[in-house]
Each structure stands twice: as C-alpha cells, then as structure tokens.
C-alpha cells in the first residue's frame, strides 16, 4: 500500500477535479477511478453565486482526501499565503505546492519552490512539491522537509506522457525510498502504466480524464492501467535487447531442406 506522510492510500491514482463537463460527471469519474485523493484549489468567491460552496459540498460527499494546490502562484509569497488559506478552508496540512516560473510551459520555478517548501514545512505543512526530474532540486526539496516528490511527466495539460524517461529513471534510482508521484503531462492510460512500470509510486491525472470524450470510462481505464503497471513493476519486467532472440526452442527444429 502506498504510504505518504504517514497516511496509507489504497489507490495509486490521484485525480484532479478541474475541467469536467459537469459536477455530476466529475463525481462519477472520481468513483470510476477508485482514487482516494483528489486535488482542489482556492479561487475568488462571489457572494452572489457562491460557486465554491456547492463544489465543496460535492467533494465532501465523495468521501476522499483532498490535496489542495497552489496553482497559479508565481512567487514564494503567493504560494505560502495560498497554502495557509487552503489549510484553514480544507482542514488539511497537505499542500500540493506549485510555484510557476514560466507561463507557456508552466515550468516550475524550482528556486522559489525549494524556498516555499522550506517555509511551509517549517509551519507544519506536509508538502507535495510539483517539480521537475532534476536530481539536485529533488535533493534540496527533501532537505527542505518534503517527504514526497511530484515530478512532471510533461507540461501540465499537454498529454505528452513522459518526456524525459531517462531523467525520470535516474530520479527513481537515485531516491529509491522516497514516494514519487508523476504529476502532469500524462495523456493516455499507457503513459500511466509506463510510469508505474518505471517504479513510480503513483500518478496524478486531471485533463486526460476530464477532457476525454467519456471521462467516466477514461477514469476506469486509468485505474486499470495504474494497477497493471504496478503489477508489472512488481513482477520484474525483462530487459530490452537490441537483437532478436527466438522465443520458440531452436533445439528440435526439423530439417526440411
């Protein structure tokens, strides 16, 4: 079972709650995914519409843990203040820490990320940093107090899968005991299975499910892919070869010339 910050999770699939066609589809997709953690955010509330109140009621009824994010924050100050506000509203010290450094790629500002992680860890937060596959940044995040890392597969919402498999494999090998969750960029279930086969502990999916033609069926497909990938990792995949090796025995082959 996956253990993050002393919490055991039955599912290795985490699901975002944004960009679904309707709240009802979101709720059905969460159930189909069998996710036990969903990500949420904080945004300005209109006193007239009170949209946030209805959303929060829906999420609470799902009976899952929430992982609030600091999406949209571009500075340490914004991220820290948003985290403080999220802790009060959502009643959890978990925070998916995003400090964005570049708007076209939503590339993390890793310098601000490490600094914000240090501040928030010191304030008792359990930080899930959205980072890159950079080994040095990963090490500094762990020193800053993080006990889980969330490297990107590809830019958020791009659906491009694992852009740097070599770098991600190096990250996995370098930190064998740190829970690593692939966050962002996964587009189809085979990407999620690949991440799990490489030994990552979990994946976080949002757009790939929410923007599918049928989000509920896609959520189920991702659930199966994550389980298959995890099972394959535990089973020990074969090493690839450059040349063919006959799978049918050569000995006993008839000579028919």
């Amino acid at each position, binding site marked *: 079972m996956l253990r993050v910050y002393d919490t055991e999770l039955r599912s290795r699939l985490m699901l975002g709650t944004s960009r679904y066609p309707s709240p009802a589809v979101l709720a059905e997709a969460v159930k189909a995914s069998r996710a036990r953690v969903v990500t949420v955010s904080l945004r300005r509330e209109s006193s007239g519409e009170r949209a946030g109140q209805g*959303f929060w009621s829906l999420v609470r009824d799902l009976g899952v843990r929430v992982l609030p994010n600091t999406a949209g924050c571009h500075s340490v100050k914004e991220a820290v*203040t948003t985290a403080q506000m999220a802790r009060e509203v959502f009643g959890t010290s978990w925070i998916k820490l995003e400090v964005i450094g570049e708007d076209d790629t939503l590339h993390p500002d890793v310098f601000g990320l490490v600094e914000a992680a240090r501040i928030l860890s010191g304030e008792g937060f359990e930080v899930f940093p959205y980072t890159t596959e950079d080994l040095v940044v990963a090490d500094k995040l762990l020193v800053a107090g993080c006990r889980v890392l969330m490297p990107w597969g590809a830019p958020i919402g791009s659906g491009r899968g694992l852009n740097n498999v070599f770098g991600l494999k190096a990250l996995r090998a370098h930190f064998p005991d740190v829970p690593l969750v692939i966050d962002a960029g996964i587009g189809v279930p085979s990407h999620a299975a690949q991440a799990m086969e490489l030994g990552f502990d979990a994946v976080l999916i949002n757009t790939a499910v929410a923007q599918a033609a049928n989000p509920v069926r896609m959520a189920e497909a991702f659930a199966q892919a994550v389980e298959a990938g995890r099972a394959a990792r535990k089973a020990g995949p074969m090493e690839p070869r450059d040349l063919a090796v006959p799978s049918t025995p050569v000995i006993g082959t008839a000579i028919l010339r």
Partner: protein
Amino acid sequence: MKILVNGTWCETTATYLASALEELGYGGSTVATALNGEFVPAISRCAAPLAEGDRLEILAPMQGG
C-alpha cells in the same frame, strides 16, 4: 470607506474584517481571507481592522488539478 474586494472596489461601513464579510454577503460561507496579501485566520477576523483602500481577498474551494 472603499476597499478592494476580490479586485472590485466596494463601499463598506464595516470597520473590522468579520463584519465586512457579513455585510458583503459571505456570512456562513466556507471561505479563507487575506488582507493586503497577508492571510487572516477566521479566528482573527474580529480583531482585524479595515482601512480605506485595503485589499481583501475572499477565496473558496474550487476545482483544481
């Protein structure tokens, strides 16, 4: 006095954050507040004075990835 609430100028007679939330229609809502960029916990809103031109952010749960 006028304060900036979620980016829009509003007229309020409230002198503290807690009473401003009531006056602005947020009574009973699950929201978090920040005044001039600093988080103000719910428990401290009664003791958070408002001044002309203050920037108030009122945030609520929303979809997120």
